[in-house]
């Protein structure tokens, strides 16, 4: 840790976090909603793209979506409500 603040990389990371946080303050606060009020489609759009493109519901069968939902919940650390709503949307 002793070199943490001396390193060029750390400065870049800290600056980026600051910029992103400030940006998000302006953009993210405009639509504060609890998960319970969101649709599966909205949660699908918001959460999947955190790591990868949003998947098409037609990609997998119902049983497969249930299985993949469990796999992805443990990767992205979704809440249970998010997983249930997203999987319900993808099964449609």
């Amino acid at each position: 840790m002793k070199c943490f603040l001396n390193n060029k990389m750390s400065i870049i990371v800290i600056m980026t976090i600051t910029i992103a946080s400030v940006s998000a303050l302006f953009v993210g606060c405009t639509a504060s909603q609890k998960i319970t009020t969101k649709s599966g489609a909205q949660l699908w759009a918001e959460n999947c793209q955190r790591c990868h493109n949003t998947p098409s519901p037609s990609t997998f069968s119902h049983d497969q979506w249930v299985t993949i939902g469990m796999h992805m919940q443990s990767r992205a650390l979704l809440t249970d409500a998010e997983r249930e709503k997203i999987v319900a949307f993808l099964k449609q």
Partner: protein
Amino acid sequence: MFSKKHTYAFLLAGIAFLILQGSVIAQQTTVVDSALLQRVDALEQHAADRKPGEDYFMVAGLTTFGFASHTATTNGVKTKSNSIVDGDNYEFSPMLLWRHGQKFLMEFEPSFAGGQLGVNWADISYFATPGVIIRAGYLVLPFGSYSKRLAAGWINKLATDPEGVADQPPLTDYAVEVEGGFQTGTMKWNYDVAIANGMQLNPDGTIQNAGLAPTNNNKNYCGRIGWLPFSNSSLELGLSGMTGKLGDPGSSFQSAKSAMWAVDLNFIQKLSPFQLNIKGQYEVIDINQTDYINPIDSSNYSFSNHSTAGYIMAALRPSFVQNKVLKNLELAARYGNYQTPTNSLWGMKDNSFAIGLNYWISWRTVLHLTYESIRSESTISTNLGGTPGTTTTTNSVYLQFSIQL
């Protein structure tokens, strides 16, 4: 022309013909309906006989392959090489998912990569209660976000991994893990903690996983906490830590201990017509041992066992334009920095810059065209036969295809 008799006879004949026709059609309809009913009955019986059961097994997975061309320059001397299938970044990894009801999930991902057959993970998860998942087996430890979430070729925005971040410290181990996500107000949090068999310190100062049969009681403790301050999940900040003893009791390394920290960032934002994505991670690895054994001549040598690795990546995609070709293009750039211990046998300071153009064939299929330049400065001490300050610049071009199945 026609008498009344003829007219009546004609009308009667017409009516009789219509009645006869109707009767024939009715008979035909009855026959068709009967066949349909029998078919429906058979299908209903078939559906009733079919028991979906509690278990479900499926195969997913990914593969990545491509072409790489490298030009390395050291002290003005150039060497060139190229490789079909891009040896450093080739991967074929089927993933087996086996679900038992809604509570258990087994995951197994064998992988052929780097010319070797290995295992990325083999674990079982128990979805205990809302917000609590318990996992055990051979798994990716929670340290930073890159290795666990972003390293797959079809997810990565560039053809290569950021140096150091993907493989230091070694993050796949035999472990027990507890993790989950929850919401407080409009914010979200997630946590991920694990106890692993841990790492061992090699005589030369490098570290490796203890594997299945460690020679001591040491364990590795690690965890990550993630914070998503906004309800649209557009920003996630992560903080990770990992520590553990590294040496056997009675050995010269018995007091050796690791202290590792990492911060990570993920930010997604729509800037119409673009989608902006910023990702980053920075990690520090400290080991309190300073005296080691030179594997070349078994002499003692000392260095401060301190390493850092980090990257920051930005990607911009015109996702919201109408043009079908343009909306599938994505521009990505990444800066990376990786420093291994100065005066160690593997001491170096690397700065890398990568820029790439991606074409998304589908949501899970991508063609990467990436240019990467790595400037590596040696920090190996002269006592060890090194030439500190010697720099090697490696410029590489990758054309890579990656798909998730």
